[in-house]
């Protein structure tokens, strides 16, 4: 319980830190929401007037603390661009990113574990060589290429989905997922390649240890040894890696969301940054930070579960 409270307070601290840092960033970078929203009709005076109206001229501290005060009450403010409460704006983006993340993480795990293990098992063999080559290629292919190729192949040639179509979750959950799967694949492929590479190294290291020999002496099947005995040990560094991947996709994949016209958080974030829509950026980043902290916290717990020697 004490542990829990400690973690919770450190979570809050992190969020606070991030929000302060973000706030400072917005002070530092050129442009603000006033200038950004006025565009080429901006002149010094109009920008000034709008700044005044938006409260951008108030004292820095006053602004931060009033934001903080509201945020603590769950009110993340109004988007300067969309003139909508931020929470409402994000509520609609959330499921997109979330489901995209869930699907891609599932794909990553389902594909990378068997391939990583297979590759390590036959280290130096043909399948290993093939997998290694493919993973390196997949890692080197930029995500947007992948997205385009997937759309081309599955969308235009095979016609398994209609590119650009997006059916919201509330409309039809089944179809929604159907449309999510392809972007999820595009996200998953490079990450899967990385995970495979990582897992492979880790498994190879484990396979050299004596306990594997013991497991073999018992008459275990090679696969059982790999999955039951080695995997748990080998997973210790890999979990960290997967956690980073999870945090990454939960933050929203900007490129993929854009390519597949998904209105997710990642795209929202980029738009908001370029519009200097402070409250939106702040809310999204706080969300991401919370996700990251919580996931890392979970990872620490998983360590404890997997590796009995570890005291975290």
């Amino acid at each position: 319980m004490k542990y829990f409270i400690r973690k919770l307070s450190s979570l809050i601290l992190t969020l606070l830190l991030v929000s302060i840092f973000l706030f400072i960033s917005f002070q530092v970078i050129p442009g603000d929401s006033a200038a950004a929203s006025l565009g080429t009709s901006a002149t010094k005076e109009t920008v000034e007037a709008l700044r005044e109206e938006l409260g951008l001229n108030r004292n820095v501290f006053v602004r931060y603390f009033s934001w903080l005060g509201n945020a603590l009450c769950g009110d993340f403010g109004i988007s300067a661009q969309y003139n909508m409460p931020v929470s409402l704006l994000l509520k609609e983006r959330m499921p997109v990113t979330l489901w995209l993340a869930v699907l891609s993480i599932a794909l990553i795990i389902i594909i990378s574990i068997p391939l990583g293990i297979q590759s390590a098992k036959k280290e130096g063999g043909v399948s290993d060589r093939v997998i290694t080559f493919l993973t390196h290629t997949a890692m080197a292919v930029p995500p947007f290429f992948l997205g385009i190729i997937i759309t081309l192949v599955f969308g235009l040639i095979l016609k398994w989905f209609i590119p650009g179509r997006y059916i919201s979750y509330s409309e039809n959950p089944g179809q929604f997922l159907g449309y999510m799967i392809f972007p999820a694949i595009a996200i998953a492929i490079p990450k899967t390649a990385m995970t495979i590479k990582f897992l492979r190294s880790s498994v190879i290291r484990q396979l050299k240890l004596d306990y594997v020999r013991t497991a073999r002496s018992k008459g275990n099947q090679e696969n059982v040894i790999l999955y039951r005995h080695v995997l748990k040990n080998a997973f210790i560094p890999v979990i960290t890696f997967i956690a980073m991947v999870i945090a990454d996709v939960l933050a929203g994949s900007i490129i993929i969301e854009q390519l597949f016209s998904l209105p997710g958080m990642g795209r929202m974030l980029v738009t908001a940054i370029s519009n200097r829509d402070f409250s939106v950026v702040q809310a999204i980043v706080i969300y991401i930070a919370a996700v990251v902290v919580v996931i890392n916290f979970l990872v620490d717990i998983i360590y404890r579960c997997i590796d009995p020697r570890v005291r975290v």
Partner: protein
Amino acid sequence: MSKLGNERKNNLGPSQLSDVNQPLLTVNHITVGFQHNGNINKAVNDVSFQIKEGEILGMAGESGSGKTITALTIMGLLSKEASVLGGSILFDGKDLFRLKPEEFRKIKGNQISMIFQEPMTSLNPVMTVGYQTEEMLLLHENQLKQAERKRKTLAALKEAGLKDTETLYYQYPHQLSGGMRQRVMIAMAMICKPKLLIADEPTTALDVTIQAQILGLIQKMNQEYGTSVLFISHDLAVIKNTCTRAFVMQEGEIAEEGTVRDLFNGPKKAYTKKLMAAIPDLSSRKTGFPFSDPDAVQNGQAVLLSGKEKNILEVRNLHVFYEEKAKKLFSKKTRKQVVNNVSLTISQGEILGIVGESGSGKSSLAKAVVGLIDSKTGEVILNEERPQMVFQDPYGSLNPAKKVGWILEEPLKLAGGYSQRERKSKVLKILNEVGLPDEYTERYLSQLSGGQRQRVAIGASLIRNSKFIVLDEPVSALDVTVQARILELLKKLQKEYDLSYLFISHDLKVIYQMCDRVCVMYQGEIVETAFVEELFRKPVHPYSKKLLEAVL
């Protein structure tokens, strides 16, 4: 794993003693090599032998002579670096090298099983002991119900001399003492009642009482189930008591073989003779066997100690406990006390022995003394800034990513004040002193035999002339010749530099030979401390008595 043993020689093994029993295992001229910088080192060279059904065959030999490699070859468990260069192995009429992997797999564990030499590293660190043992049943007796399996597992653990098996079942290897892990290995290997049991130094970490129990267990299996055993041990006394026939390995070849009686009474080869001669004997101490010469105790020993004023180590009311991680997340941790109110002193130049039951807290005490355990109370005053320690598990205590040369050099680098040349020459010197050739500086630990690793660990602890060294079962994996050499070295250095040792061993002969005073540990407490002669002559505590009885 590579198999190449297709070229079968015409004579079926060297065994002349063909009696009624069919050979269960026939090893035909196997040769196993490791590639080293282009040339092949043969670790096992043209070795042939047979084990008949129901026989216990002993295998003795120098450390590094290829015993383990031979055993692993039979099991088909050689590492990738090793290659079988020739020969064949027949088990139950089947050529193991030609068996399909799947068929071979089914034999493993079920018909042939093996107790590995290094129990410390041979268990899976992230699986409970119970599961790892039970897995054998899962694999080979899957008709059993879960409850039944657990019952059998607990019984097997108990038979191997483990107590509190219900708790043990849920524990992880790192929570166990060296001897406990070894017994888990034993339980695991025997649980399926295999036709052939390969026991590679199965009792190295066990105190005499438990050793006797285990040997009894092996013999019982042998008699009740007809299990054949390949019993590898450097302890000739054990071989003598357990086996009927035995052979001696030297530098990868069979030096001599025959019935145990013949071997012990009339060794023919020079090496065997040397082996027999080197058996440390309780009588090898200066004044002869203490039991026959009660006066020996008086003889200067007490004087030597009483005059000592300067203590190198003082331990007062030491308690050591481990935090047992809670089974459930977030629930309270529990404390387990393993060393209970221990006080002891070691004076400068003294060797204090610790004997005691496996799991009684010897290693924990040792680690606490040198400051490796934080969860302790009490006082430890150590007058040496850099105490050294030979860990019970040499493999785990040396850096697997580094070569032997580096490992030995590291203490010198840390001590400072040596030029690179001096360091190199000191490394070579100590390497020779522990009986390893120069080229071993270029090897990784994984490329050494058990005994060789142990010697590297000893070398690393000795090299910087620390005034106080803890030796936790330092010679458990060494054959008598090497053991004698190492003990001599330890003695020599101790004399030369006035070193003090805390010497943990289950081998009373070694204790007798080395130590000035001995503490007997039992269930976390020191139940008796005495001058070595005194203890051997007149043990007071019932456990001490039991211990000594077992030796005789």
